[in-house]
């Protein structure tokens, strides 16, 4: 009995209800995934290796990038020219006395010329950069995606889909943003240098005084940036924490309602949301504090121009137009500095993202076609394991010296507790991995000597969990046999007994399956995956029977479908159900990576080994006995 049994009056048990008890915080309660994210870390701002790799991907766009850089130079030049033209207009026309109307017209002509050049260069610049960045994004993503199709399954097993997706999405965006902003950053840099040079050329005295505010701003930003960045980072972290908690509330709502966790979770979420709000407000304070500072500096720079420049004008040692030009330049002064310091964060992010992307691209492809690989032909459906030793981690073989042979057309059941190596053996037939020692032969050939493509057509696999893709029922059954007609698909569905329930779906074969076909029952999904294997029509079938228990009615249907699926094929079945096992021609019992028994049902029962023990103990499934080690040892002891 639970210690400290509480009174059965509702509200007494969970303090979330009573007002007085609300201060008692539950020790074990959390909301949201309790794993810190390491993906958000900033990298160095400049990583030569990443840049080099990145440049390689840019190579196809070399000419266009050069065009963009030229355009950026023109664009900046036109921006620099506008105040200069105003100056000329003032000094050469407006204040030069009579007869200068012609000059004004000429100057205006130049001005409109500059406007046109500005338009063209900006148009070129932005379209070229935008398009290259778009291409780059899809290039990188495709390269990664294509690579993931061929890297070893071991890597895929160890890597969460979510993590890969964040590389395929967030990280490529970071690089896209980097490319876009770098070209504009070049523009900013040129603009800054341009403004400074123009000012110096216009008037050295005034320029050097005005430019004195620049270092002040740079120092202010240098002090500000690290603090602000921490605040921004923290704000982002709290946002992702809040989102994770929200995701939990969406996906786990059934459990939350069933277990009455609403109150506790809401309190916890409130804390997180308040944290998030406060972190964002803090970040906002940091972002806004710079506004008056920059305005103060701009004001000072303008004041310097007014006082010093004004005096120089009064002394007639400076033309009034120059002073006006100065005033215009000063107002644009800080823009490039601002965007350049944003550029720094973008670069840091891009380097970290690049590292992660190229890491994926560098994952070894362990299983490749040999240059002289041959195409398997359909004639032979035999499978042979010859002294196969294999494992995932060095010195920890999962299969030890396993040998067996399956004749063409034979059905063999693989039986054994969890971790005995059944699934690995199946994976080797399909050459998901390469063996350490020995060889796996399919259709008389070592699997390493045939093309993976032809092996894939030769061996059909049905996995334990029926996996369906978003798409219609028809597309799911047909899958990659795009030549298969509606007739073939319907035939396959009929053969496995799926046709009737498909026709009962709202749009029959055209019904869209979404979210892993959650609307279908497990049994129905199983039947669809059988139909898919039937359409694939391979001489060898490898089937991992689903462990999940379905009701007896569905079970019966699946058994019938299975019988139809195995017809006329060589079949290796990882069996969990006694019916399936008894229906096999031969049974192989695996334990700890070794074959301990082999033979037809009758023989094994007669021999009185592990198989007969398990069979007699009425095991629902041969799979879950891994946990009950004590039981196995009892069996072994007898």
């Amino acid at each position: 009995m639970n210690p400290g049994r509480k009174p059965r009056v509702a509200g007494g048990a969970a303090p979330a209800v009573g007002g007085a008890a609300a201060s008692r915080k539950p020790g074990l309660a959390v909301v949201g995934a309790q794993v810190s994210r390491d993906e958000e870390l900033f990298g160095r701002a400049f990583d030569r290796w990443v840049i080099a790799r990145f440049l390689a991907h840019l190579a196809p766009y070399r000419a266009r990038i050069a065009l963009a850089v030229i355009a950026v130079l023109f664009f900046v030049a036109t921006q620099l020219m506008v105040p200069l033209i105003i100056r000329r207009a003032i000094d050469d026309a407006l204040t030069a006395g009579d007869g200068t109307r012609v000059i004004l017209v000429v100057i205006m002509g130049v001005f409109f010329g500059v406007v046109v050049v500005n338009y063209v260069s900006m148009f070129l610049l932005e379209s070229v950069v935008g398009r290259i960045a778009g291409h780059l994004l899809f290039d990188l993503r495709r390269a990664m995606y294509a690579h993931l199709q061929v890297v070893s399954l071991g890597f895929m097993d160890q890597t969460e889909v979510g993590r890969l997706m964040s590389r395929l999405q967030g990280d490529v965006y970071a690089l896209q943003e980097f490319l876009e902003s770098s070209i504009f950053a070049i523009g900013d840099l040129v603009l800054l240098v341009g403004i400074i040079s123009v000012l110096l050329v216009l008037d050295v005295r005034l320029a050097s005084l005005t430019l004195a505010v620049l270092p002040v701003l740079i120092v202010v930003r240098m002090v500000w940036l690290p603090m602000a960045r921490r605040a921004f980072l923290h704000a982002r972290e709290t946002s992702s924490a809040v989102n994770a908690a929200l995701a939990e509330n969406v996906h786990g709502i059934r459990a939350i309602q069933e277990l009455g966790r609403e109150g506790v979770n809401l309190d916890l979420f409130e804390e997180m949301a308040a944290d998030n709000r406060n972190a964002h407000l803090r970040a906002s304070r940091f972002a806004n504090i710079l506004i008056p500072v920059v305005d103060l500096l701009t004001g000072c720079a303008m004041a310097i121009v007014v006082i010093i420049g004004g005096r120089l004008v009064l002394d007639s040692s400076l033309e009034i137009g120059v002073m006006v030009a100065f005033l215009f330049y000063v107002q644009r002064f800080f823009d490039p500095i601002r965007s350049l310091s944003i550029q720094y964060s973008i670069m840091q992010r891009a380097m970290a993202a690049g590292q992660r992307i190229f890491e994926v691209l560098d994952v070894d492809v362990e299983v490749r076609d040999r240059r002289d690989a041959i195409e398997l032909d359909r004639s032979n459906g035999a499978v042979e394991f010859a002294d196969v030793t294999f494992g995932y981690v060095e010195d920890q073989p999962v299969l030890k010296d396993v040998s067996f042979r399956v004749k063409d057309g034979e059905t063999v059941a693989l039986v054994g507790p969890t971790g005995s190596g059944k699934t690995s053996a199946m994976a080797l037939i399909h050459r998901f991995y390469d063996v350490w020692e020995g060889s796996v032969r399919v259709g008389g050939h070592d699997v390493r000597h045939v093309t993976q493509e032809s092996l894939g057509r030769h061996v059909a696999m049905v996995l334990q969990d029926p996996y369906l893709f978003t798409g219609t029922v028809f597309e799911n059954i047909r899958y990659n046999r795009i030549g298969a007609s509606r007739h073939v698909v319907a035939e396959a569905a009929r053969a496995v007994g799926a046709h009737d329930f498909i026709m009962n779906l709202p749009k029959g074969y055209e019904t869209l399956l979404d979210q892993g076909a959650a609307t279908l029952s497990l049994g129905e999904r199983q039947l669809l995956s059988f139909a898919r294997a039937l359409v694939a029509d391979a001489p060898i079938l490898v089937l991992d029977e689903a462990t999940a228990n379905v009701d007896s009615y569905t079970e019966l249907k699946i058994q019938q479908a299975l019988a139809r699926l195995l017809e006329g094929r060589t079949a290796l079945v990882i069996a969990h159900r006694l019916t399936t096992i008894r229906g096999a021609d031969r049974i192989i019992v695996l334990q700890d990576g070794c074959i301990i028994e082999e033979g037809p049902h009758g023989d094994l029962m007669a021999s009185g080994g592990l198989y007969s023990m398990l069979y007699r103990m009425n095991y629902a499934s041969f799979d879950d006995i891994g946990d009950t080690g004590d039981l196995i040892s009892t069996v072994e002891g007898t």
Partner: protein
Amino acid sequence: MSGSPGARSIDVQENTYMTSDRTRTGRRIDIEFDGRYNIDVSRVDAGVLWRITAMAFRNRWRMALGIVAALTAGFFQLFVPQFLGRAVDEAQGLLGTETSRELAGEALLTTAMLLIATSVLRGLFAMVQNYQGESVGQIIGYDLRMAYYRQLQILSLSWHDRVHSGELMTRGILDIEGVRLWVDTGILRCVLLSTLVVGGAILLVRIDLVLGLLALGFVPVIAVMASGARLRLRDAWLALQEELSQLTKVMEENLGGIRVVRAFASATYELTRYDTIAARALALSHRRIALFVRSSTRMTFIFLAAMGLVLWVGGEKAMAGEITLGQLAECLAFMAILQMPVRQIGWMINSVARASSCGGRLFNVLDLEPSVADQQGAGPLEVREGLLRFEQVDFAYPASTRDKRTLSNIDFEVGPGRTLGIVGPPGSGKSTIGQLVGRYYDVMAGRITIDGVDIRSVTLASLRRQVSIVPQQPFLFTAGIDHNVAYGDPWAGRAAIEHSAATAQLHNYIRKLPTGYSTLVGERGVSLSGGQRQRLSIARGVLPDSAVIVFDDSTAAVDAATEQRIHHALHDLTRERAVIIIAHRLRSLLHADEIIFLEEGRIVERGCHEELLTLNGRYRALWDLQASGGGAQS
């Protein structure tokens, strides 16, 4: 409604923020909600915008401060060009032809000081404006987030079943963000921009009518262009997002089902699928860039051209002596100041459109009334004995279009220490009974009572605390095993947690894990086998001290021997509780005091195991089927 203090504090906000603002959308009950949001994203819904704005103005003082700051910042910003112009005139000595150079110098000094002062003041007020805007935005974001979170908690499961989880996440992240951004920067920016344009117009027109009109002429042109372009860009963006989400789905499913992909050697097929969608997405992305570039370059062109005209006409006028050089400089400087905010008009239009569609979608959910809720004046359930009764219960799922009842005329009683077994073919309504006990749906006719009290007359929270449902497929939270076991009672002590785990035959397994009970499970944790997950579900279900426990096929993946031991361990625990076991495997029900056999929602056979066998009916047939091995029994 659920009665926790946290919920109550939100209730208050709900009342102030949500209820009184229900102007247009009106309330709907969640069962009427079809899970689709037919919101026209290109149409701006004034009702929604009004409601958002009203929410913002609940933060009266912050908004007032923000508006005053925006007005003041605009006011001071208007002075900058004036002072610049004045400085030019002073320097040129036009205004002081009679005065000495000394006086001109002093005037310059004054102007310079005024420039610094106005700049600083502008900066300070702009800072206050931005900060207040963001504060209000964040406060509203927080309120909406809490309201949304809470709303998801109280909406009925039948609603959750029908709505795509991705939709709900989008709503909770992007839509709240869309609303927040409009409040954050949109409203106050409108104030600032209006101040600048109106104030500037007055100032410029006073200098010279023609010049003033020329200098301001670009504002409406660019405003119209920017708005049109933004809306087009938004459409392009939505289309691109649509395509990209397709791409995401393809990639995600490919990687999630990589074993299927490899098993069918279909890398080529998958890459073709990817390429087709990627090509479409790239084309859309190019289109979007083209739209953007076209509008932004045109706007720059128009601005510069207008500047040229002002310079030209102003130059002529200055030469003719109609205006001073300083006044011309003032016009030009003013144009430079106005350029950025005018370009942002497009951005603002976009954020209005976005806030309208995001807010619409959000309010759609927030305005839903849960179909199952506490009745007025409902008190907590007080369990004296723990006797559960179904009295002529009829039930049909709200969404079912067919006029078919899921359950008809269900009658049974199960008291503490007793066990009721429920069997029947798939779809016969077995699980529905469990759902009705926890009042996840309301019955259509008849009633369900606990100790004679109709469960609709007590609070949901107290009822559900007394009803534990052990589902077939438990949701694992990404957290430690201990946290998962104690999910329904986070105050549980270590001993209680271990005791529950031991009852579910999971303790030995957990103990052997390197990190024991703190081992992480769930999405990012260790993967548990189907049987282990079910046993965790059982441990979780038996931990809270509830009066009724419903095992919904929760031992299906557990092997027979372990199931026997679980059953044995449960014996103690269930002495004082009413137990309902829903099962496929008849062997799990051998010890039940009563078994009901359901078919199409009706009880067709009932009795204990032996009685049912002698009936020679459906139960008998199923038993024989399972005994023959069809159901993994021998």
